[in-house]
């Protein structure tokens, strides 16, 4: 693990809600971030099946998207979500880690554009996909 990844991991895992969700930063750099959310019974949305709630999936996708913006070579000082649209393709398989892979593919002076995909162990069939626009605050 690089020094930058280690620092970013500490930073993201210290965010109170990220810590509450048990998020783990796995990869970051060059406008890309991968964040994992281990299966946790507290996050179940459907008690009958044990499927994780879509809201928790949104949260890991939003976190990965923000991390991808922060790691873009343009070097924003901070970012916040402007909008995020998520399509839910299928329920995540109970018991499996959900992984959000975000890519910040374009940055202007004030806006960053991100696409994000969430998968479980079967990475050929996404659980959810999203597109977002994020604010970009330049370093002073």
């Amino acid at each position, binding site marked *: 693990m690089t020094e930058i990844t280690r620092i970013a991991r500490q930073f993201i895992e*210290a*965010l*109170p*809600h*990220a*810590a*509450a*969700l048990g998020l783990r930063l796995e990869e970051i750099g060059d406008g890309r971030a991968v964040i994992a959310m281990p299966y946790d*019974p*507290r*996050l*179940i*949305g*459907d*008690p009958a099946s044990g499927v*994780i*709630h*879509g*809201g*928790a999936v*949104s*949260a*890991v*996708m*939003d*976190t990965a998207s*923000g991390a991808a913006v922060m790691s873009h070579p343009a070097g924003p000082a*901070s970012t*916040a*979500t*402007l*909008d*995020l*649209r*998520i*399509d*839910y393709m299928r329920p995540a398989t109970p018991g499996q880690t959900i992984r959000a892979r975000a890519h910040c593919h374009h940055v202007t002076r004030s806006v960053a554009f991100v696409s994000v995909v969430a998968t479980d162990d079967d990475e050929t069939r996404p659980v959810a996909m999203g597109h977002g626009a994020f604010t970009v605050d330049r370093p002073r």
Partner: protein
Amino acid sequence: MTDAREETLRGLTGGIPYLQFLGMRFERSGDELTAVLPFTPHLIGNPVIPALHGGVTAAFLEVTAIVGLVWAGLGEGVQVSALPKTIDLTVDYLRAGQPKDSFARARINRSGRRYASVQVEAWQDDPARLFAQGNGHFLMP
């Protein structure tokens, strides 16, 4: 005051761990249902500002939309045995969510046999000053 409609709603939502994780609840005033998300520190995303996590806001809107759909269905005498499933959700983040209690209400723009389109608005102090709004499509059970 609870009645059958409220009891059915509580039966469908009461046992959902994720709603307890967020600490969400619903308040009824006549026909109108308002979702309440009391502030707790683990909802914070950015501790520097501090602001609610964007994912918390999205989840709050999504749950409000789903429960709003069920509530509207029950009001029209529809038998509801399961919760609608989210097809997609778009969230506009209008301003940072402050570390205080949040409220949200759903408006059902269309509810058919298979699909529904729902708009959701969320505020903190002033219902006219939204901090987030959302629009989602849902698959009816």
